[in-house]
């Protein structure tokens, strides 16, 4: 009967109609999809420290006064064309670039190019507690507080429309490095004033306006962020017309989407699994050396971790080389201290504890825990550059600890909730890590272990020691690198003795690309950058001139 035949045919016909659409229409050719691992917390990197937010915003929407060139290991001009150090290093003067336009968007039309007012506005927002924007959207500026920049900079003054002076409370060798980070971005003062007038200042971090190579278009939570090319960019405009962040938290899903071509670039790929699939001609994987450190931090305020002997015992109890093999598949270096190899202050001396469960047991008995104890081991729910699988790492550590009679309960929450609870110090111990924001070794210590960092909630060990803080301050006052290097060795030594945290690994940061993508930059310090990204038309030579 014809009816039956029709029934069979309908789905087949549907299938026929559904073979993937030709990839050649304009928006697909001129756009790029980056499958990011999570939602940004806001569209202003000043407000956070999360790598996801930095990747989504800094290099795309904004510019900084100066950039850091990794090849030359030097600072290069960006919004500032020149700078000089005055008054024995306590005053810096920046000359600004002319004719830098802010983004023109449906919600804001700039009437003037960038000038000194914008620099003053951007810095005073977090410096000056009386500033009308200081308390907007939380009023928390963790990077600037943790790095001490908020107390280093005394004031920022516009000398004339193209000149800005920064007055420092003392000379600081890491100042320029901090200005070149992804956090020290420049906002529009005019936009700020417009929003205040409209009575909606909170929008400044949700509908961002910057000077960067891409203009914000829309954000749909858990789904996508859409950016359009900034055709008026003051440097060479980006190649791609549209940049879409497709939010894909699941690592397996990201890999599949890369294979099906739904993603052009993905961060944190499952390197081993990708290698197993035979996709070499379609997909490239690149690893960049990343200045990061994965560590296990003890909440030194919670007993029994207030006892250094307990912390030291656990340091001896875990088999870190096994973790490197199992969690990183060997794609990481066993940490020999907090500083990774990439830092100039790195020294090859091993300043970590070896694997010695017998000695660990002795130490525990000495501390009065011969029968072990119970505690919570918090593991991140997401992959980061420094730790591809914190859950697995937690399981390995749990097994190691069971051997010395210590019982760990693995705890995890959704990522934003996880960070919130960490900041409230609800944890006993946590597996987490740090990616440096700038090339200065100080960035590994003050944001992680200083009393200031404890106050803003980036000090996961809850560690605060006046002598230790003084040592960090001494290292930052010193201008000579050789002497600083020595001081940082002392700092490392201190961490070795007191064990507020156990450094575990320094890993590479991996990205995977479709074969036709080039120019995606992943700087060691900071977030991914799509300014030079483009499709290399491999099909053009084969089917020249054929347009559907």
């Amino acid at each position, binding site marked *: 009967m014809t*009816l*039956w035949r029709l*029934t069979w045919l*309908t*789905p087949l016909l*549907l*299938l026929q*109609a*559904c*073979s*993937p*659409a*030709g990839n050649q*229409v*304009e*928006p*697909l050719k001129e*756009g790029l*999809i980056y499958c990011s691992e999570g939602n940004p917390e806001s569209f202003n990197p000043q407000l956070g420290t999360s790598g996801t937010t930095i990747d989504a915003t800094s290099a795309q929407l904004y510019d900084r006064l100066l950039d850091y060139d990794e090849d030359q290991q030097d600072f290069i001009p960006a919004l500032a064309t020149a700078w000089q150090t005055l008054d024995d290093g306590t005053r810096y003067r920046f000359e600004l670039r002319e004719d830098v336009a802010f983004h023109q968007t449906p919600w804001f039309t700039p009437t003037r190019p960038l000038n000194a007012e914008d620099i003053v506005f951007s810095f005073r927002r977090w410096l000056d507690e009386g500033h009308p924007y200081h308390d907007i959207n939380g009023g928390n500026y963790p990077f600037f507080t943790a790095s001490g920049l908020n107390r280093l900079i005394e004031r920022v003054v516009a000398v004339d429309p193209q000149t800005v002076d920064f007055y420092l409370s003392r000379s600081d060798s890491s100042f320029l490095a901090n200005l070149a980070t992804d956090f020290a971005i420049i906002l529009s003062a005019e936009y700020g004033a417009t929003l205040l007038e409209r009575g909606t200042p909170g929008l400044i971090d949700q509908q961002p306006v910057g000077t960067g190579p891409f203009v914000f*278009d829309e954000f*749909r*939570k*858990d*789904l*996508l962020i*859409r950016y359009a090319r900034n055709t008026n960019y003051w440097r060479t405009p980006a190649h791609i017309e*549209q940049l*879409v962040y*497709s939010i*894909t938290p699941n690592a397996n*899903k990201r890999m*599949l*989407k890369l*294979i*099906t*071509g*739904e993603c052009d670039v993905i961060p944190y790929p499952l390197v081993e699994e990708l290698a197993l699939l035979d996709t070499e001609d379609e997909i490239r994987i690149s690893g960049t050396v990343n200045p990061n450190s994965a560590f296990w931090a003890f909440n030194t305020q919670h007993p029994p971790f207030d006892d250094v002997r307990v912390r030291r015992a656990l340091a001896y109890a875990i088999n870190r080389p096994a973790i490197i093999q199992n969690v990183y598949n060997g794609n990481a270096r066993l940490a020999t201290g907090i500083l990774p190899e990439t830092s100039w202050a790195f020294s090859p001396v091993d300043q970590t504890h070896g694997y010695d469960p017998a000695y660990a047991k002795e130490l525990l008995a000495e501390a009065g825990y011969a029968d072990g104890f119970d505690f919570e081991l918090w593991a991140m729910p997401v992959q980061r550059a420094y730790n591809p699988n914190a859950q697995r790492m937690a399981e390995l550590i749990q097994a190691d600890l069971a051997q010395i009679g210590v019982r760990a309960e693995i705890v995890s929450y*959704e990522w*934003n*909730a996880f960070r919130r609870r960490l900041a409230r110090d609800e944890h006993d111990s946590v597996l987490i890590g740090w990616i440096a924001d700038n090339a200065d070794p100080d960035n590994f210590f003050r944001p992680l272990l200083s009393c200031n960092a404890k106050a803003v909630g980036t000090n996961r060990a809850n560690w605060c020691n006046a002598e230790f803080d003084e040592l960090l301050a001494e290292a930052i006052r010193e201008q000579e690198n050789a002497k600083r290097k020595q001081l940082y060795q002392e700092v490392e030594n201190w961490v070795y003795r007191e064990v507020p945290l156990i450094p575990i690994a320094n890993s590479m940061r991996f990205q995977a690309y479709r074969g036709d993508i080039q120019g995606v930059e992943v700087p060691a310090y900071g977030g991914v950058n799509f300014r030079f990204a483009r499709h290399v038309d491999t099909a053009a030579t084969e089917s020249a001139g054929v347009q559907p």
Partner: protein
Amino acid sequence: MIRYTLRRMMLLLITLWLLTVFIFSLNYFFPGDPLTNMSGVRASDALNYQLATATRAFDQGILAQYSNFLGHLLRGEWGQSLSTQQPVFQELLPLLGATVELSLLAMIVAMVIGAPLGLYAAGQRRGALDRLVMGLSLSAYSIPVFWLAQLLILLFAVKLGWTPISGQINPLFDIEVSSGAILLDIGLSDSPYRSAAFADAISHLWLPVLVLAMMPATMLMRVTRNSMLEVMQQNYIRSARARGLSDRRILWRHVMPNTMQPVVRQLGLMFSILMSNIIITEVIFNWPGLGSWLVKSIYERDYPVMQAGLFTFAALILLVNVLVELYHAWRYPQVRKELYAER
């Protein structure tokens, strides 16, 4: 029929009312502050919290709170999300569109595949093809939807490369979201690449639709087959045969309408199963619909969103079931008569 309709409507209203009581009491059962759970305003936001206390009558007794809650619910003021601070109801509408589009298409596909195959199997009763179709339907019915989805993704997307696996459309097509139903939105948009976008949307759609349609289709197949076999045994079919009517006429005039009667009754149940499967399917295919929204809200402990999602799903299932029953009673008067006789 009018009496029956009224009775059903009363029942619907009462069930919906019970649902609102349940949802309201959830605010007290969830951990934390009931007002925050309901409105999404945290106590740290002192000014708005005070405002919410007043507008939601939290300074009064529980009955006043409930009647206020009902008022807000009816006006579409469902509070704001704890994680995005956006109004929940406005956030919900496009998601509802996406979910309804997916479920409607899945229902249609299920009917197009299921009913004819059931009829076909009945026609071939106890033949090899009947056994094959029924065996296939039983095995397809037994595969859990999350596993089926993964298998089909591996086959069609990864191995064969025929289809993408997530979302409604390639995000590079900048289609403005108005209804949430992607095919409709493409139709409404002024994008110059509409036809390409349409093809792309279809290539995103067919796999989740197929996955979703599988379970109801197999159910339909079995129900249709059994019902048709039963109808074929009836005396009026024999007498029609005896009067010398052609097979085709018997099939279309006498068998089909009567076969469809129990099938239509099952549609409500099928829809309920579809709704629970759609939650899983949406999560797997990153479909921006109610289901993935609800699951996400559970992860994020976003109580206002969780309530809204639960309420919408429950209300949708209730509504569809009542509509199916009404249609059933209207289309098949004998059912109505049975109902009255039983009273």
